[in-house]
């Protein structure tokens, strides 16, 4: 068997394949990542219990976010779905002050968006779950932080802040995430 001759055809195919490299067309990067992050935020709500006073049995779930246009578009796919039998009402916030977050059951902060200290205090007082997906900006900046790790997105939960907000997180979720006491 003449291996060099046999190798020629498949090697040529390999070369031809990678000669196609210049055909690569750039697209807005990170769409998939945004979808995964949005899905994660939606999914963790199954494991959180809000006090009945802030999430009445028949009321909608107000899902607030501070994000750019692309993420807003991704989040639009969640609107109309339900969280614990509450229909999701999506609200995009222009700012992140205490006035803006009033009435939100969840605030999702993307990128470097953050709540000011008074807004965070208001969120805690109103049992609003604050989720952030940007770089960690310090203590008391989010109750749930999305953390990139090994090409995936993982979660870190600030348990003290969650408790202060009178939210309850199921132990099943805590087993899957990093817990910051």
């Amino acid at each position, binding site marked *: 068997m003449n291996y060099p001759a046999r190798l020629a*055809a498949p090697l040529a*195919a390999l070369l031809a394949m990678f000669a196609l490299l210049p055909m690569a067309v750039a697209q807005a990067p990170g769409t998939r990542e945004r*979808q995964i992050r949005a899905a994660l935020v939606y999914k963790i709500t199954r494991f959180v219990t809000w006090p009945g006073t802030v999430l009445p049995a028949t009321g909608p779930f107000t899902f607030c976010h501070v994000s750019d246009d692309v993420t807003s578009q991704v989040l639009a796919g969640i609107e109309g779905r339900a969280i614990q039998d509450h229909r999701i009402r999506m609200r995009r916030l222009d700012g992140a002050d205490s006035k803006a977050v009033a009435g939100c059951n969840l605030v999702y902060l993307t990128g470097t968006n953050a709540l000011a200290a008074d807004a965070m205090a208001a969120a805690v007082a109103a049992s609003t779950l604050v989720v952030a997906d940007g770089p960690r900006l310090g203590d008391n900046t989010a109750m749930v932080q999305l953390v990139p790790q090994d090409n995936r997105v993982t979660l870190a939960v600030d348990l003290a802040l969650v408790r202060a907000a009178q939210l309850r997180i199921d132990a099943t979720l805590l087993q899957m*995430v*990093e817990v910051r006491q």
Partner: protein
Amino acid sequence: MKHPRNPRRSARALLLMALAAAAPAGQAAQDFLDMDLREVLDLEITTASRKPQSVSQAAAAVHVITAEDIRRSPARTLPDLLRTVPGLQVASITSSTWAISARGLNGRSANKLLVLIDGRSVYSPLFSGVNWDAQDTALEDIERIEVVRGPGGTLWGANAFHGVINIITRSAASSQGTQLSLSAGNEQKFAASLKHGGKAGEDANYRFYVKGFDRDASRLTSTGASARDDWRAASAGARLDFGSGDSNAFTIQGDYHYGEAGEPTIVNLLRPPYRQYVPTQTRYEGANVVGRWQRQVSESDSLTLQVFLDYTHRDWAAHTRERRLTWDVDFQYHLRSVPRNDLIIGVGLRQSDDAFAAATRGIPSDALQFVQGQTGSGVQNMVSFFAQDDITLLPDHLTLTLGAKIEHLPETGTEVSPNVRMLWTPSASWSFWGAVSRAVRTPSRVDRRGQVVAAVELPAGFVLTQPEVLRGFNQISSPVPIVLQQGSGHVDAERVVAFEAGVKHRFSDTLSVDVAAFRNEYDRLRTAQLVPPACAPGGGIAPACLLNSPPGSVQYLIENSPVGNRTDGYGHGVEMAIDWTPVGPLRLQGAVSLFKSLTEANYAAGEFETDRDSGTPRAQWSLSAYWNAGRKTDLMLGLRHVDSTSPAIGIDVDGYTELDARLAWRPRANLELALHGRNLLHSQHQEYASELLDVALTSVERSVFGKVTLKF
């Protein structure tokens, strides 16, 4: 305090149903929302776009072993990882050889299961089986292993007769950093692996690994002495992923491996002692390179082009020496622009070029080779085409899948493998599915142009003295030895029509159950036929030729059984998997498989089937408990039971129950110390026997080893 992403995720892990089918952005977003949290946590951010599908949304019997399962398992080989998969039968023959099958017809040369590593088929065209010793992928680099029981012929090809094992390694982007692992113990004497991943520019990532191990021999069941089947191997590989945004992804990867494994061979001779125990050494090496291009053509459509080259060399003492070069091109197009349709079409070309010689190293020079008629070289070509469409009949509730694969081999013609599947999901927590599919096993190289020496029958009155030697068939009494050989005649494709049904139910976020039932109707399975032996030298039909020849002139008789496709039969069974997290830190996973098969040749015509239906246990179960206490400590206990089997003529193997365990402690985020135990309940136990009677019976020993893993 870092905690691993999550505990075991298999029951809810991702399923890559296609080799690399792609999903449009909008649809993928909805798919992600419909997955459960464990699945979303398992998604790679920058992976080449594929068609993600939840196990609960698959109209097939699927089990997924995730990277986390592998990390927490005490198993250090692929076969050992597969032991707890429902519906899969895994049994050790020697320290480096296994019989592995899905849904029956198991054996050393089990030939009805397709195994893919990153889309590269690793079944050997020589006997249509898998050399499991050579599949030495670094376990730490495996992203997940998807096991699909039942014919998967539509998407994967001719050998996915009883199932497909799809091993998918991590992308380079998710293998960043350096990891060193060292382990040592009584059976796993020493193992080391080093892997490293990094970035090579903005959109490019790479990883490489080197690993090696030295494993101790098992025990001869007959004498308790060492079976001298100790096993040493080393491998190295690298992968480069690069692309541009979300629309193009390229992968180039390759591996090289070399190994040496002892085998307690029983060789056949035409002189006393006729059957002789001879410890031998098998040497094997291989190299492969894979190139893959995935492109998002539009919002809805994508394509994948994959090319691979695979070289293998195996010097299998007393059996054959084989060199093989395979190249393969696969193209797939995934189209979702037609409303309610999700269509994948593909075409594949393969050429496999081989060269054979007698493997005489370390055995008596006059020993008969088990595989004969193979010297010289040959080329096998295959062309295949497939199309599969998931048609949404009722959005979110009812999906019909229609598919067919057409394969053409010059020597066997064209074979069609159609399948039809229905998935009904009345709610997010219930799914019911059913399928009818047809699959074929195309004849192997040995089937078409080879003979197998099954055994040498002893002459009347001769007594074996070596306790290791299996006696053989001993059907008739003759003054001279009789060589039993199979292989004249013609083997055509074997066929199965499989009827499958299943239900998957998620009772809550912590409890899910998956039940599948199947019936396989076999048609045209391989047979051999008993014929009167002929005198050698001289020819003529025994016993007349013996009586008419001068005394002493006939040295042996040879019975060359013609092969064909005259066995029919069935196999049916039920498989159940349960996944339960009763309290936060404790996770339980259980699996039960019940199985029965019956294959029958036309015994009246002297025909017999060459696959043994009695080589598969009627029942097997496993129960694994994962305890994740205090985040720094993991404990895993796994109990498994396998019923008795009769893997070869005259050899019955008792059922056994065994316990595996792993205790790991992470004093620092980058350091893990683990103690692994396998087969802890017995000092040794036998699991199987080679149906060819070419290997002395061996027993697997209790194994304990420690492992240190350091990341930096």
